[in-house]
């Protein structure tokens, strides 16, 4: 990937809420066909960071570049129009509508009836939906039944298919497996791999270390608003990443554990004070 233009470049992004600095000069690059994990403890600034990238928050400093061009979004809708799709935990689907209606929600394909009346082109939308779902290897038993009747994983898949259909350049997924059972989690991870293979980069926010290690190429760790580290998955292990997440004390504790497992004194002095 080195040498090619990154799809997304974030440069020195900064955000404060009153006296609290939520994101402190964070930079990162995401290239085509790459899954990047974003890890961090609660309050590390992950959500604030992705909300700035997806247009929900306005940064107080720094730049976001999409395909080399500086962009600035005032609403999530603007970010989406530029190809940054965020898949939220609450899915943002209309549960009373079917998969096809959701994929085309707000962007319905119309056709002319009797010359001048504009009506929904259902066959077209159904055909296109089936095609994008096939392309992503998503199996939905009955395309015309309301989303409500689908499983959590299938709904997640419909959200992702919608993003892909509308030409997402970058997919941001916030805890995509959090509400799912194990088999469904595996399907969503599989889907993330499919997206990568089709060239759509994914920024994956997760608490679940195993998920990140299963699909990510690279992981960015945040701690107290700053970037604590950035490592390739192939060059690291879970301990090192946890170490980056919680800071230096953890590494000391781990060393102590290795040297004298019986006598551990865990000191967590400044972790909870702030």
């Amino acid at each position, binding site marked *: 990937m080195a040498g090619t233009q990154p799809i997304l470049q974030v440069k020195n992004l900064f955000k404060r809420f009153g006296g609290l600095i939520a994101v402190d000069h964070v930079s990162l690059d995401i290239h085509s066909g790459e899954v990047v994990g974003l890890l961090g403890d609660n309050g590390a600034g992950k959500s604030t960071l992705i909300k700035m990238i997806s247009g929900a928050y306005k940064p107080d400093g720094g730049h976001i570049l999409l395909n080399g061009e500086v962009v600035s979004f005032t609403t999530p809708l603007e970010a989406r129009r530029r190809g940054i799709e965020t898949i939220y935990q609450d899915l943002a689907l209309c549960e009373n509508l079917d998969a096809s209606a959701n994929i085309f929600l707000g962007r319905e394909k119309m056709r002319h009836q009797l010359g001048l009346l504009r009506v929904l082109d259902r066959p077209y939308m159904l055909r296109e939906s089936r095609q*994008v779902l096939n392309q992503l290897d998503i199996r939905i038993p009955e395309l015309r039944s309301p989303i409500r009747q689908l499983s959590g994983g299938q709904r997640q898949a419909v959200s992702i298919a919608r993003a892909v259909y509308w030409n997402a350049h970058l997919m941001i997924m916030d805890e995509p497996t959090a509400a799912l059972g194990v088999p469904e989690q595996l399907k969503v991870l599989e889907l993330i791999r499919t997206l990568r293979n089709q060239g759509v980069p994914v920024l994956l926010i997760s608490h679940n270390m195993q998920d990140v290690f299963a699909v990510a190429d690279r992981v960015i760790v945040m701690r107290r608003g700053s970037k604590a580290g950035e490592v390739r998955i192939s060059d690291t292990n879970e301990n090192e990443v946890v170490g980056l997440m919680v800071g230096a004390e953890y590494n000391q504790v781990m060393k102590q554990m290795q040297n004298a497992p019986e006598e551990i004194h865990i000191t967590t002095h400044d972790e909870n004070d702030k």
Partner: protein
Amino acid sequence: MKVSDVATPDTNQDVSGKTPLRPLDIVSRGWSWLFLIILIIFFSITGQGFLNLFNFQTIGADMSLVLIMALGETFVILSGGIDLSVGFVMGLASVAAALVMSSLGSSAPLFVVVLAGLGAGLGVGLIPGLINGLIISRLRVPPFIVTLGMYGIARGAGFILSGGQPVSIQTNSIGQLGNGYLLYLLPDGRYSFFRLPSNLDGVRPSQIVQLLPLPLIFLVVVTLICAWLLSQTRFGRHTYAVGGSEEASRRAGIPVVRHTILIYMLSALLASLAGVLYTLRFSNGAADVGDPLLLTSIAAVIIGGASLFGGEGTILGTVIGALIISIIQNGLIFLSINPFWQFIAVGAVIILAVLVDQAKKKLV
């Protein structure tokens, strides 16, 4: 703007994507049909004179006002709202229409008088709809509260406009139009459209066969337009979407504010249409003529399977709901049962409809 740089998967699959209906689906979706058919059979057996083309024409003409109002309420309820003001909006529109038509009287051709009345009724009636929509969507006040307030405002405005008295129209031709039939047949084979044949010598009124009441024809046209609007257009799709999840609709780029305003305007428009139709049928207009229809129209929507939480319902469902109510009302008359029982019967059916709906949700 769609993905095109990928291999096309096989598209030989069944495009229709239909799966056979399970018997359970048929019962749960079609219970209102079933109930309607049972009612018709029951009254046909028990009520002398119920099963008769002319009685069914009467049912159709009589239900026109309540169904037109219920069609507007269907859009509102589907979008997750409620419109309590339609009854008095109908009254207000009937007063406005009656004032214009009675002042024009027979000084202008009939169609000019009717069009002027229609314009006045719809124009005046749209104002409360616009205000409802603006306050609900922009100021985010719950629809129940806003339209309850408008219920009182439209009521007061109707009485002020009419001076507290019903406004009656002295022009006979208007009443003939509102109660007219498309086709008149005489026993000697003569026929005419829209009005009685001119020469009625030797023909007793009871020998004239009157087919297709004009209010019924008007009702069918309005219903078909609403069904088309809801099932075929972007407006209809967005109505379902907003009712399903306002947040998801907003995120998908649907102009939720504008859509909500349009829905309450449509509701007011249909209520006003009912008001003008009332004026044509009864040759008068009064502020409180629509009040008894409000709850009946909401009942028709609910019996028709719509969810009060929004997102579920169809025009066909509302038509069946209105038919069930009208047939109960009409059938009980043929059984010579005290008419007050019809309120109890309709009330019981509303509760039954919601019970069936809940049972259905558990089964799915």
